[in-house]
């Protein structure tokens, strides 16, 4: 099977985001593979281990993204393709077009996997656009994937504790969610081997894509400070509970029936 996995290079969620301008932040912080994309890489590698084939990770990102791609290669992906851009934020339409062009130039996908959303821009839509570009069906929030002949059967977390069992023909695009699998921790030999795997670099401009032609543009970022100055409700459990109840009634969060 020829499997492509779309992976994003994102700041670790524990990193502090320090804005250096309304549209830029200090990128010297730790960057990682987008956590949801790790489930996608793991799934692809497991399928390859069972059915044979090749797993190619594709990333649209800055030069530093190549380092993160090595983590995906260490998990068992075979090769990488990095579409280089200098933009910090890219419209998802532009990203999906770049992914499509890069994948198409490389081979014929039997399956495309991606994480259901990125933890930085949280767009939740690139894989839908990619599916449309490839004229493939798509499902997201997937926690289980079975492939059988020309068909993919997935289980999707649908809210309310429900899981939808969905069928699509392959090739298709699957958005991975937490619970799809348990991503492996690469061992030292895997990490060493990953250093020798190929990461092909292409420039966004070489694909004929202009990042300025996007439908959604980040105008400005603002830090959201955590609230502070908590009012501590002292006393024993009953006293604190009574005080809190009075506050909730005063704020009309609960209605005093009296």
């Amino acid at each position, binding site marked *: 099977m020829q499997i492509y996995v779309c992976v994003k290079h994102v700041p670790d969620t524990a990193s502090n985001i320090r804005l250096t301008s309304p549209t830029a932040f200090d990128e010297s912080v730790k960057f990682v593979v987008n956590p949801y994309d790790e489930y996608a890489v793991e799934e692809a590698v497991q399928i390859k281990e069972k059915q044979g084939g090749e797993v190619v990770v594709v990333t649209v990102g800055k030069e530093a993204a190549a380092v993160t791609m090595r983590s995906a290669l260490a998990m068992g992906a075979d090769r990488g393709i990095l579409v280089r851009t200098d933009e910090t934020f890219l*419209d998802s339409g532009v990203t999906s077009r770049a992914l499509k062009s890069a994948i198409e130039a490389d081979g014929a996908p039997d399956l495309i996997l991606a994480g259901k959303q990125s933890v930085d821009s*949280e767009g939740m839509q690139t894989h839908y656009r990619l599916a449309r570009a490839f004229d493939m069906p798509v499902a997201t929030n997937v926690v289980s994937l079975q492939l059988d002949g020309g068909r993919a059967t997935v289980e999707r977390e649908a809210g309310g504790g429900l899981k*939808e069992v969905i069928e699509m*023909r392959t090739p298709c695009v699957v958005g991975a969610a937490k619970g799809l699998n348990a991503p492996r921790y690469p061992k030292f030999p895997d990490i060493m081997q990953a250093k020798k795997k190929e990461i092909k670099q292409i420039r966004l401009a070489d694909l004929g894509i202009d990042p300025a032609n996007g439908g959604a543009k*980040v105008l400005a*970022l603002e830090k959201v400070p955590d609230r502070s100055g908590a009012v501590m409700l002292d006393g024993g459990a009953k006293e604190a509970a009574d005080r809190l109840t009075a506050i909730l009634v005063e*704020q009309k969060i609960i209605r005093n029936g009296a």
Partner: protein
Amino acid sequence: MAITGILLETENGALKEAMLGIITAVRRSASDDICGLMLTAEGASVKTAAEKFGVNRIIEIQSDAGLERRPSLQAAALIDALRHYDITTLVGISSSGGSDLLARVAAELEAPLVLDCLALNIAGQTVQKSHFSGKTIATIKLTGSPMICGMRPNVTEPQPAPCDANLETFTSTAEDRRPVEIKDVKGTQSDDIELTEANIIVTGGRPVGAAENFKMLRELAAVLNAAVGASRAAVDAGYAPHSMQVGQTGKTVSPKLYLACGLSGSVQHFAGMKTSKTIVAINTDKDAPIFGKCDYGIVGDMFAVVPALTAAIKEAIQ
């Protein structure tokens, strides 16, 4: 005149409460006609609630091929309606189903889309949403038509704006080009309030100690008419299912009141509930980070505080 369409979602045969705030948000930021779009034949059930908040037209979209359990066909039919009625802005709830549909529509039309919006300015074509898991708010400009937005529930206080709504049906002849079909639904629809749309949430952390102990939190939730959530640590310990998890790798919520019982207040947890209006923390550790990030704090054992709170609230609402 430009028309803004709102994708109306129902629950148990009635308009979802989370829709009301969204209708208000749309009404405030657009000078357009507002029409409600439905993909089920429930127009009559939602009419009264929708018109109370300013929806003056309700369009039931249907297809002879049957829309039920076919998200790909629902998207195609919705697009058909957008074109037919010349709808230039489409807004919905950023729920699991809503986000999926809005994304399918945006992808097909190559239209701009922002999900999980915290604020809308339809006339100015800008929205606001979280970037970096709640650490920043991004203002985003959308260019193109239709402009498509999914809103986070409970970020706008609903405000009545009564009008009369006309009800009509639109039959779409759109085809399902890339079929995605729901063959089965597993699990039982819980009676629990959906976390992502709940107005009040009680969340238990690892100190809950056992799955059975969530019963105590459910009792508090019952008197508050609240939903019950769990921290990642509680889920990983097996005390609650992943569907109850609030936080970066769980659900994002935005209630009026968030009661955090035994939570330390990690960045990752806050990513999922930072926009809660009022946060109350109960923790035995006076140095827990959460006390530096909440509105009200109680240093104490939740096994004493929670039942005391349940009793006090029961008495207050008597």
